[in-house]
């Protein structure tokens, strides 16, 4: 749910009373036409608030929490669950971890500790939204979200498949799953892990805590999903090519 322009203006006045709209845009990197359009329509996107608050060194979550529709974000952040943390590790990083561990095991007695795996790429990754929802889903989660927000289940799935989720739905999903409210905002890339209050190295720690079996099974699932997506893309590509050959 985008933020009302009036509340946005009030907030902006609060953090930068002297700055003109042009200044704000220059500092925050928000396009001037974009902001003008959002103000004219009376609805300001959450991402605009996030960009501006970053430019003024304000925590974006705290900034969003000043708006009525996001007031529940206020207060101390709930730490993410281990499953959430692991869900925000890119598939390729999981696979590197598998390889690194097996290399360490093959080294046997010679190497006491496995070679250090490369640092994890920052969240979000290509399927982070869907992986996050899968990680917190108890089997009924999608049902509860659609009942609570009124979104049709197929529209919700479509957003997950496209690796998108509106901030409003992301928070509604967290609430329905009973986890920290900012997890979905991290998974959609709206805010960073540290902005959400995730301790540094938390994802790496969660990864290290996985047993070899858990890691292998998880990496296998991800790889299978990746294969499916790639195959579908190839099919679409092939179909498009056939159309060009016949009608192009």
């Amino acid at each position, binding site marked *: 749910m985008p933020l009302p322009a009036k509340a946005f203006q009030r907030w902006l006045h609060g953090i930068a009373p002297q700055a003109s709209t042009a200044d704000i845009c220059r500092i925050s990197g928000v396009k001037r036409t974009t902001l003008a359009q959002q103000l004219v329509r009376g609805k300001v996107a959450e991402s605009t608030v996030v960009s501006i608050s970053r430019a003024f060194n304000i925590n974006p979550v705290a900034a969003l929490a000043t708006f009525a529709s996001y007031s529940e974000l206020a207060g101390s952040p709930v730490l993410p669950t281990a499953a959430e943390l692991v869900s925000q590790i890119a598939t390729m990083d999981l696979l590197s971890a598998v390889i690194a561990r097996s290399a360490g095991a093959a080294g046997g007695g010679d190497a006491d500790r496995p070679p250090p795996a490369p640092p994890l790429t920052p969240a979000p990754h290509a399927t982070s939204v869907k992986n996050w929802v899968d990680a917190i889903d108890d089997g009924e989660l999608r049902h509860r979200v659609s009942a609570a927000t009124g979104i049709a289940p197929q529209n919700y799935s479509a957003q997950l498949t496209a690796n998108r989720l509106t901030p409003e739905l992301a928070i509604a999903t967290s609430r329905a799953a009973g986890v920290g409210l900012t997890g979905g905002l991290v998974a959609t890339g709206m805010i960073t892990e540290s902005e959400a209050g995730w301790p540094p190295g938390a994802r790496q720690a969660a990864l290290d805590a996985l047993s070899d079996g858990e890691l292998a099974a998880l990496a296998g699932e991800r790889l299978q999903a990746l294969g499916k997506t790639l195959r579908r893309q190839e099919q679409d590509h092939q179909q498009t090519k056939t*159309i060009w050959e*016949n009608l192009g």
Partner: protein
Amino acid sequence: MIEILQWSTLAVCCAAAVARIPSAVRGENRSLFYIFLLATLAILLSIDGPYVAIDGLLGGINVANLILRFVLFTVIFFIGLRCVNAFGADKQRRWLVGRPGLLVFGLISAVMVVFFAMMDSFSSSAGLSAVYERSTRNAHLVEYYGAAGRAYPAYVSLVLLPAMVKAVGSRLPGLVRAGALLLAIGGVCLTVSLLFPFFPAQLTPLKFVINYGAALCFVVGLAAFWIARVRATQSAPQKSSTAK
């Protein structure tokens, strides 16, 4: 108003055919060039002035109208064939080029030719309106002849419709889906044109809108596929150059 529609449809068709010449010379999908060319000819023959002139050369007994119908059949057949191949609609192929498809084509053509032969077809006029007004018998014959002429295009577009609807709802590029949507709309227009005999007289302008609207939908829809490919092949080298 109707004249503007007729001539602008002709212009669009003609432009598409001309624009297609370079790729036809290069040997890319020549049949599309022929489709546009024949469509231009068909539309030319459906406009009053050119029709009377051309029919005059052919003896003034409205043979041009019969030619127009068969040109239309050819155009729609090849559009259908191209689309069936392009969209991999193998189930529908049988109904177009298989025995059932050819049977429908033969039957409709035969009926149309018989009706044409039975009427007193002299004195050229587009849409056979002069023949229609001569006697009740002729009026009926023109009605049946026209219905037969509309039946085959309607049949082909009905065969194509499921594949088009499926393509519109697919994950294909936007322009391809837009093209499929236009072909589907054109097909629906052709099918609605089967109901023309039941249209009251005051709706005659609507008939023209449906006829030429269908032609425009088909031509613009085919052009959309083509533009989509041109765009895709143009943007591909750009992408690789920025990647360097």
